[in-house]
C-alpha cells in the first residue's frame, strides 16, 4: 500500500463515519458539525485527485460560510426532535429496503469489473507547474460560458423566489417617517372649533 492509498483510506473512513453521524446524531448542532467534518475530509480527497482549487473552495465556501450560516439557523430554530422523528420506525423497513437495494446497485456498477484499473487506465499526473485554477477559469469562461451564465440565472431565481416568499410588510407597524414628521403643519394636527360655553364663568371649581 502506497502512501497516497493509505491517506485515501484514512480520509474515506472518516468521511463515511461523518456522513453516517450527520443523519444519526440526535442533536442538530452535532449533525451540522459532522457535516463540516464530512466536507473537510471530502476536500482532502479532492486534493488527492489534484483538484486543489475545488478542495480549497469547498473548505472556504462550504465550511467557512455556508455551514456557519447553517449552524446559526439550527441554533435559532426551535426544532422539536420528537415530532421530527415521528414515524421513523414505521418507515424504516421500506427505507432500509430501498437503501440496501441502491447499495447493491452501486456495488454492481462501481466495482472494479467496470471501472477498475485494468478497464480504465490511471490518468497521467500533471506537472508541478500545472495550474488547476487557471484551467478551470479558462473552461468556465470559454467552453462552458453558457452553462455558467445559466447557473447564475438559477441563483437569481433563487433570490427572487426567496424574497417573494418571505418579504412581509407588517400592517401593525408603528413606524413613522421622520421626513413626514417635520413637514407637518399646525393645521394638520390642530383644529380650533368655536363652541358655546357650557358653564357660567366662575360658577364652580369643584368639577376640576
Amino acid at each position, binding site marked *: 500500500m502506497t502512501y497516497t492509498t493509505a491517506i485515501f483510506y484514512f480520509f474515506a473512513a472518516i468521511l463515511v463515519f461523518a456522513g453516517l453521524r450527520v443523519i444519526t446524531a440526535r442533536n442538530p448542532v452535532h449533525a451540522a458539525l459532522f457535516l463540516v467534518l464530512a466536507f473537510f475530509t471530502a476536500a482532502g480527497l479532492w486534493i488527492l485527485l489534484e483538484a486543489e482549487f475545488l478542495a480549497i473552495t469547498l473548505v472556504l465556501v462550504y465550511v467557512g460560510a455556508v455551514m456557519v450560516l447553517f449552524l446559526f439557523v439550527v441554533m435559532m430554530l426551535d426544532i422539536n426532535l420528537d415530532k421530527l422523528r415521528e414515524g421513523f420506525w414505521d418507515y424504516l423497513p421500506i427505507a432500509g429496503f430501498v437503501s440496501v437495494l441502491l447499495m447493491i*446497485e452501486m456495488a*454492481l*456498477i462501481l466495482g472494479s469489473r*467496470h*471501472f477498475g484499473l485494468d*478497464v480504465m487506465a490511471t490518468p497521467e499526473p500533471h506537472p508541478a507547474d500545472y495550474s488547476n485554477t487557471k484551467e478551470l477559469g479558462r473552461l468556465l469562461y*470559454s*467552453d*462552458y*460560458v*453558457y*452553462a455558467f451564465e*445559466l*447557473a447564475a*440565472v*438559477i441563483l*437569481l*431565481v*433563487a433570490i*427572487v*423566489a426567496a*424574497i*417573494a*416568499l418571505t418579504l412581509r410588510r407588517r400592517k401593525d407597524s408603528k413606524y413613522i417617517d421622520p421626513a413626514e414628521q417635520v413637514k407637518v403643519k399646525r393645521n394638520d394636527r390642530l383644529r380650533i372649533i368655536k363652541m358655546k360655553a357650557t358653564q357660567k364663568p366662575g360658577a364652580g371649581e369643584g368639577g376640576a
Partner: protein
Amino acid sequence: MSDFLTQFAPALPEIFVLAMVSLILVIDAAVGDSKRYLAYVLSLATVAGAAVLTVRDFSTMPVLALGGLFIDDPLADVLKLFLYLTVAMVLVYSRDYLRQRGLYKGEFFVLALFALLGMMVMVSASHFLTLYLGLELLSLSLYAMVALQRDSSVATEAAMKYFVLGALASGMLLYGMSMIYGVTGTLALADIAQILADGTDLRIPLVFGIVFIVAGLAFKLGAVPFHMWVPDVYHGAPTAVTLFIGSAPKIAAFAFVVRILGQGLESQVAEWRDMLVILAVLSMAVGNIAAIAQTNLKRMLAYSTISHMGFMLLGILAGSQNGYGSAMFYVLVYTLMSLGSFGMILLLSRAGFEADKLDDFKGLNRRSPWLAFMMLLLMFSMAGVPPTVGFYAKLAVLQAAVEIGYVWLAVAAVLFSLIGAFYYLRIVKLMYFDTPHDTSPIAGSADSRVIMSANGLAVLALGILPQPLMAVCVYAIDASF
C-alpha cells in the same frame, strides 16, 4: 473577440428574454401598486419579441453553438414558438384571477418568464449539462410560483411536496447521467450517441444509467408509478399556476425526453422501450380510473394529465421519426386542450370564489351557451371524440405503436380512453342537463373570452384540418434527426 460574440447569435431569443426579465424586475420594484400592469404588458411584449427573434433566425438545419452546449434546429425553433404562444395565453387567462387574489405582482410574471427561459434552454439543449440546468431553472421557478399564495396552507403544502419530490427526481436524473458519463466519457448528446452506436463493453452501468434517467424523466412527466405529486400540486396551487404547470412545461418535457432518449440514447431503444411501455400502460390505467372518483375539476384534470402523458409515451416508445412526430403532435394538442380547460376554471372564477368543483359547471348552458359549447369541444377533444383534434392525436400515437408491432398496447390504450370518456362526458352532462345552483353572471374579461373562443374553435378547426399542424411536426422532427 467578434468570434466570441458571434457564437452567441443562435441564443439571441434566450438572451433577449433574460435581459427583459431583468428589466421587468427593476421596473416592477420601482413602480407602485397602481402601475402593476406594466409588468403584465412588458411580459407579453417579451414573449412577442422572442417570437419575432425566433422566426427571424429560424434555422432549417441543426446548428451546434456555444461550445456544443446549445443546438438550434427546427425542432427547437418550432417548440419555442409554441412555448411563446402557450405562455402568452396563460398570462391573458390568469390576469383577472391574479388581481382578485392579490397575486397580481411583478414576481408572478418574472417567475413565469424565468420558467419560460428554462423551457427554452431545455428545448434547445444538446448536452446533459444544459438539459439539467434548464430543467432546474424551470423547476425552481415553478416551486416558487406554487408557493406564491403564502396565506394558503394548501398551496404551501403543495409547494413543499413538489419541491421534495422534484429534488428527488433531479437526483435520480443526475445519478443516471453520471453513469452514462462513466460509460461514454462525455456529456454531449451527439458524442454519446456516436460512442454508444459503436458499441460498449460496459452494459450493466449503461442499463442502470438508462433506468435512472427514465425514472427521473417519468417523475418530471408525472407518469405512473412516479405520479404521486401531480394531483396534490394541481389541486393545491393557485389555478393560474396550475394552468401554467399543466401547459407549457409539457412541451419542454417532451423535448427533454426526445433529446435524451431519441437523440442521445437512440441506439439503446431496445433497453428503454420496455420501460416506457410499462410507464405508458400504468399511466393510462391509473390516470383514467382514478379520475372517475374525483369531484374537484383540478384534481380530475390532474389525473387526466397522467393518462395523457401515458398516451404521449406511446408515440415516443415507437422510437421512430414517425413516432416522435406523432408524440409531438399529441403534446401540442394536449397543451391546447389543457390551456382551454384550466382557462375555463379561471374564467368562471371570481373574487372569493373558485369554480373548481364539478358542481360549479352544472347548467352552464343556461348561464352562457357559448362558453358551455367551448367546454363541450374541449372535453370532446380530451376524450378523443371526432371531429375534434383529440381524436387525431390519439389516432397518430396509436398508429405509431401499431407500426412497431405493439397491437395489444394500442388495444389497451383504446380501452382505457373509453373508460376516460366517462368523466369527460360527465361534465358535458352536468353543463347541458342539470339545473344551475349558482346563477350569478360570469365575470371573465373580454380579452380572455376572445382567447377562450379562439382556443375552443382551434380544437375544432384542427380536428377538421389536422394536416397543417401534423406537417409542421413531421418537418420539425425530420429536419432535426
